[in-house]
């Protein structure tokens, strides 16, 4: 059906306002299909406007912002210490890593570094979180593609990791345990043994999952050769993490620019070859085993000693001291009401999150509140590659591609 140009202008105005799409006059074959924001495969509330030529995708435009909560604005109105709790809510399946990215930026401003035990506990928490985040990805990604059983197996393992976080911090998902100066508390009795038990059981559980997927013809059909993107496009779009490694780039911030004490850990960076959905799956599976190696090294080499920096202007005194030291009471009160004042400056520390490079850009104006705190959101940048990956593929592949780049809408919208 041909459309006259006046009518087309009218349609285009309406379509641009409503959906941000443009209807091409020459090609009346394309059709616009809306996907989301409540579609179960979009991992939250992501809306994708698909322009279709038959069943082939001509363009995929993501629309975001449905769960925007203004976290960056809110951080500007909180002290440095209070702002830590807000960072959990960004990427809600990898809270420890968010805490660490904010904390390391603030520590860079302050010019401090926690003692070895604090650093090892941090690494352990971050690696636990990495496995937990990858397990959420594995479960939901397989669920999207139609392999429902994996979801239950993956969440069974994740439950053990969340139990460990609960044992340490008292909460499962929003711990705020890594704070400027160190950690809120030391590992409880039996915590390291729990970690050891997990490491012992984990390979068997993963073998079970892999045996269901690796040689499964349906899984391979749905994932191999789907959503390919080359290295240069990945880099220019700011796409990092497992998606970049699946393209064959051996780039991991933990080895490229080691933070905390990652330079003391022995592990290797798994890379893919074909940059498709299947390679991203293989890379993430291999990463979970590497994280397990790091956890084991942490447990074996766990140093003794303090976990926090010895500076009462940054870290509150222990509870026992408050009963018999007036100075401790003053420090406690000043720290939790006023907080600390980092020097004027700007700091950014890149970290490797389960999704890619994460980091907080914190601007200090010398007061007790961040003047500006901005997170580099890895999922937000990775989502830009969606159109590139989906062009020329079928609608069903979009579901697999969205799953493979592992997006978390809480972090995209912040």
């Amino acid at each position, binding site marked *: 059906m041909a459309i006259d140009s006046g009518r087309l202008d009218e349609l285009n105005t309406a379509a641009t306002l409503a959906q*941000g799409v443009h209807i091409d006059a020459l090609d009346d074959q394309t059709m616009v299909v809306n996907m989301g924001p409540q579609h179960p495969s979009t991992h939250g509330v992501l809306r994708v406007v698909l322009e279709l030529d038959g069943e082939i995708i001509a363009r995929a435009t993501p629309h975001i*912002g449905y769960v925007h909560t203004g976290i960056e604005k809110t951080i500007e109105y909180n002290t440095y210490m209070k702002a830590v709790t807000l960072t959990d809510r960004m990427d809600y399946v990898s809270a420890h890593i968010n805490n660490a990215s904010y904390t390391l930026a603030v520590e860079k401003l302050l010019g401090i570094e926690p003692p070895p035990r604090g650093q090892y506990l941090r690494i352990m928490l971050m690696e636990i979180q990495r496995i937990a985040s990858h397990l959420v990805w594995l479960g939901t990604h397989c669920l999207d593609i139609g392999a429902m059983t994996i979801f239950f197996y993956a969440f069974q393992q994740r439950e053990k990791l969340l139990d460990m976080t609960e044992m340490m911090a008292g909460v499962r998902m929003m711990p705020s345990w890594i704070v400027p100066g160190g950690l809120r508390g030391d590992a409880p009795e039996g915590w390291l043994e729990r970690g050891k038990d997990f490491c012992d059981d984990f390979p068997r559980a993963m073998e079970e999952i892999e045996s269901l997927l690796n040689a499964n013809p349906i899984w391979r059909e749905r994932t191999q050769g789907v959503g390919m993107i080359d290295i240069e496009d990945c880099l220019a779009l700011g796409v990092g993490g497992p998606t970049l490694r699946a393209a064959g780039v051996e*780039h991991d911030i933990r080895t490229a620019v080691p933070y905390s004490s990652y330079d003391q850990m022995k592990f290797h960076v798994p890379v893919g070859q074909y940059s498709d959905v299947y390679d991203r799956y293989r890379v993430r599976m291999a990463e979970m085993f590497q994280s397990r190696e790091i956890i084991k090294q942490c447990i074996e080499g766990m140093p003794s000693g303090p976990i926090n920096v010895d500076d009462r202007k940054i870290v509150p005194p222990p509870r026992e001291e408050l009963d018999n030291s007036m100075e401790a009471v003053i420090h406690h009160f000043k720290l939790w009401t006023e907080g600390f004042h980092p020097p004027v400056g700007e*700091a950014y520390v890149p970290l490797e999150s389960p999704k890619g490079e994460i980091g907080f*850009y914190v601007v200090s104006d010398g007061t007790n509140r961040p003047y500006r705190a901005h997170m580099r959101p890895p999922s937000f940048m990775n989502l830009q590659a969606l159109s590139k990956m989906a062009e020329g593929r079928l609608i069903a592949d979009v579901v697999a591609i969205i799953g493979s780049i592992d997006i978390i809408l809480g972090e995209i919208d912040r």
Partner: protein
Amino acid sequence: MSVDSVITAPQAQSLEAQKIVAQFPEGFVSESVFRGDTRIMVERAYIVDVCRLMRDDPDLQFNFFGECLGVDYLDKFDDHRFEVVYNLSSVVYEKNGKKFGTGRRIFLKVGVPEDDATVPSVVSVYPGASFPEREIFDMFGVRFQGHPDLRRILMSDDWVGHPQRKDYPLGGERVRFPDGKFGPSVGEVAVSHPGESYYGKTGDTQGEHYSRSRTPTPDKGPGTEQPPPAAPGEKAQG
């Protein structure tokens, strides 16, 4: 802006700054180093050229577009209100037997005045700048010239104002009650808490200058109820 050391054109120290001075002498403004990170301030008209130089120069090879972000400094500087910070890094990788990348990281900055809040878009150099530039436009109202699709990204399309600006109050939205009347916003009734002053020091009046005087008074609709003046020390109700 960092104060550790500010270096001007003749003494440009880092490799990146030297390259910029050699290629675009008018484009270079200053260089500063804070805790080991180099930040180079460039003229905003040159940002696209400088980004292209950063990407294509064989000694630099900044192939990875980290992000760009906006900062609102209000009237801290004479010549600009906003700053856009570009975070570029060079990822080391090997392809077809050739090595790429240096592993360095650089922060480029441009100053943007309030009355002419425009910056040339770097999407043509780094396609990954698309979403971050839309976010800066959404949050700060800085327009990126040449951006293919400059729309709001996080706020809704009909939103008025740019929320991350420092003169945009937190909780600035007035509450609408079922009878059609509007209650006060959180910002209008907020009382600073004793012992926890906004600007960190008790009795610091700089804070007043920063936020209160620049807060636009929301225009009162016909059904608006003025909030009763809060008694001193009384906890405000949001």
